[in-house]
């Protein structure tokens, strides 16, 4: 009888991917941190000051109090964490990561810690500890699978979130994220990809022509239409990289006669604040909401993007007036509703290849969008297969928590964070993996390329675009030949 956890050999067996030479050594994250007014030696003091201020003005303290009383160190989370399973480095066990922050809290912010400090001395926070936290908190892909498995109910993801928040207040955050956010909040273009308005308009016109060429239907991307039902905001990178997703969405609105608009003033739903700083999170949310108020739309509709949907859905009520705030939806909710009402018709004979669905952590983990996307896919894909595990227990693509935006760490993402995902996709044998999330799409493409999995990453609306059936009255010209 065995009582222990998985052995190294079993861990190896759990991964069907044959090890490539460059995978054997542990991939270090090696993020180039963004550091401002850096003074070694004063960092611990500044960390504690930032921690104290954050505790004063936020709601984290009661959760920390609960967690330090509950933590039983059972190591159950170790079997759930894709990062730990890939690296086998004990520093990557979620409970250890949480303990880094909890121990600082215990020593410096609780009565017991202060007593113990007076009596026996418990050590002031050191620069090395900050260094370790910076490394560890950014190793995590923030997929929150460990939270499902903790019997004591410790939300390791919340602690990582808080840890990154404190670190960023003293100038430690990945450069890539900070630079993008700076452009979004203070730059001339006002979005993370620095996409100017004329380029946006050109892109959309180009897409309109493409749709007409493909389907013979005149579809418009409505710009700045006041009092529309939905203010549609995708991740801005979709305008550059996911043309088919946007075409699919526009086609759905055309076929269902929905009232929607894209703002030319602000068209980026990306919110990196979720990954490193609550204050940035709040600023981006307020910027998005102000745009919905300016255009007087009834609600906000987020495109195929996990973190953008989650932040808007859960933080618009928090920062913009509670239950009175305008509702926020994900595009898949709209498409599902239209399908249910019979307004959207999809041809079941177009997509015949095997298709599987990847749940983005940010919309599936809490059980928000789990069955609806599957119902949409099943409505027109004959060969649908599930990955295992799936739904709320899905595996992260490996690019979560903002790491996908950091190009320098691609080897880390594709050999550590996403390794289990690559095996999972390979096992389904699917031709397409649907990933309704801008971050997951980018990460999965790189992952499948690096791990040599023969499968194509695609958005849900890219597939819908292939299979959509327009009303006869909308079709202006017969389907053109490819030669034309």
């Amino acid at each position, binding site marked *: *009888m065995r009582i222990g956890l998985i052995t190294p050999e079993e861990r190896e067996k759990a991964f069907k991917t044959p090890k490539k030479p460059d995978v054997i050594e542990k991939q270090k994250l090696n993020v180039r941190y963004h550091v401002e007014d850096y003074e070694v030696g004063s960092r611990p003091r500044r960390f504690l000051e930032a921690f104290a201020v*954050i505790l004063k*003005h936020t709601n984290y303290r009661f959760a920390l109090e609960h967690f330090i009383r509950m933590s039983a*160190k*059972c190591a159950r989370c170790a079997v759930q964490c894709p990062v730990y399973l890939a690296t086998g480095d004990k520093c990557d066990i979620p409970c250890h990561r949480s303990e880094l922050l909890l121990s600082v809290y215990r020593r410096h912010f609780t009565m017991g810690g202060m007593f113990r400090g007076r009596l026996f001395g418990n050590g002031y926070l050191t620069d090395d500890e900050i260094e370790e936290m910076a490394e560890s908190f950014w190793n995590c892909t923030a997929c929150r699978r460990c939270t499902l498995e903790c019997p004591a*109910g410790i939300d390791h993801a*919340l602690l990582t979130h808080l840890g990154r928040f404190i670190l960023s207040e003293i100038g430690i955050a990945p450069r890539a994220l900070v630079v993008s956010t700076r452009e979004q909040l203070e730059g001339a273009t006002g979005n993370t990809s620095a996409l100017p308005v004329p380029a946006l308009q050109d892109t959309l016109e180009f897409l309109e022509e493409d749709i007409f060429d493909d389907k013979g239907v005149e579809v418009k991307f409505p710009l700045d239409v006041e009092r529309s039902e939905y203010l549609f905001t995708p991740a801005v990178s979709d305008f550059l990289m996911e043309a088919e997703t946007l075409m699919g969405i526009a086609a759905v609105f055309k076929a269902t006669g929905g009232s929607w608009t894209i703002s030319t003033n602000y068209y980026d739903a990306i919110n990196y604040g979720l990954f490193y700083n609550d204050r940035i999170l709040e600023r981006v949310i307020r910027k998005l909401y102000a745009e919905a108020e300016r255009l007087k739309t009834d609600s906000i509709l987020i495109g195929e993007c996990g973190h953008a949907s989650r932040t808007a859905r859960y933080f618009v009520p928090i*920062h913009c007036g509670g239950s009175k705030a305008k509702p926020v939806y994900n595009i898949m909710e709209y498409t599902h509703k239209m399908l249910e009402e019979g307004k959207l018709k999809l041809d079941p004979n177009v997509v015949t290849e095997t298709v599987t669905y990847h749940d983005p952590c940010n919309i599936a983990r809490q059980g928000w969008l789990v069955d609806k996307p599957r119902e949409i896919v099943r409505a027109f894909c004959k060969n649908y297969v599930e990955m295992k595990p799936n739904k709320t227990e899905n595996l992260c693509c490996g690019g979560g928590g903002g790491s996908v935006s950091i190009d320098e760490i691609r080897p880390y993402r594709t050999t550590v964070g996403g390794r289990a995902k690559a095996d999972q996709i390979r096992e389904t044998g699917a031709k397409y993996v649907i990933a309704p999330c801008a971050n997951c799409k980018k990460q999965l493409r790189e992952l499948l390329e690096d791990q040599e999995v023969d499968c194509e990453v695609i958005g849900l609306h890219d597939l819908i675009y292939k299979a959509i059936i327009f009303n006869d009255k909308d079709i202006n010209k017969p389907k053109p030949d490819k030669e034309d």
Partner: protein
Amino acid sequence: MQQLLDFVSGPLFRLTFLIMILGLLRTFVLDLWGAWDAYRRAGDKKLAWGDAFSKTIQWLFPVRRVFTRRPLYSLFSILFHVGLILVPIFYLGHVQLWEESTGLSWWTLPHFWADLLTLTTIIFGLLLFLGRLISSEARYLSRSQDYLWPILLVVPFVSGYFCANLNISPASYQVFMLIHILSGELIFVLIPFTKIAHCVLMPLSQFIISLAWKFPARIDDKIGATMDKKGVGV
């Protein structure tokens, strides 16, 4: 010896039991107070009550979880807890003592079941301890209290089992009884101040997680002002 036994089972028992009850009450009330304060400050008060409730039930009676991940560990842990909770409260001898001193009494475990659950608690407590020793992950995370607790919790069960079942001389009976009561009292005193406080905090966990993500509204300016960073860019 008899005098000592009278003292530990009388005044000392009352004192330690009181410490446990008041300590747990304090912990529980502080936890709830913190949660209430967080709820008051939250920008959005719409909580997923139903989801938190069902997760709480799932974790209080984690049967569904047993065969999904780490089945052995889960099974050991559950079997350990069943006896740990039931025997001290529903053992006939204990209930009789309560009845003598307070007049209150309640349902009791049949003798066979009390014995069986005592044995399972001892065995699975030791197995959990061994598991912690064997598993490199658990060893890496463990603090000293994590090793001590399973051992300490098993002591009153072993001594109690001897007192109830073995045909031993009155003198050694008294020694075992002394160990039984003293170790129990040590546990009482430690419970509120260690991780065993989860015996009352456990039902709150899932609600606290879902509430913890409900941040207060408009913290940007407040934090910025306090840190002298107001209006400072990203």
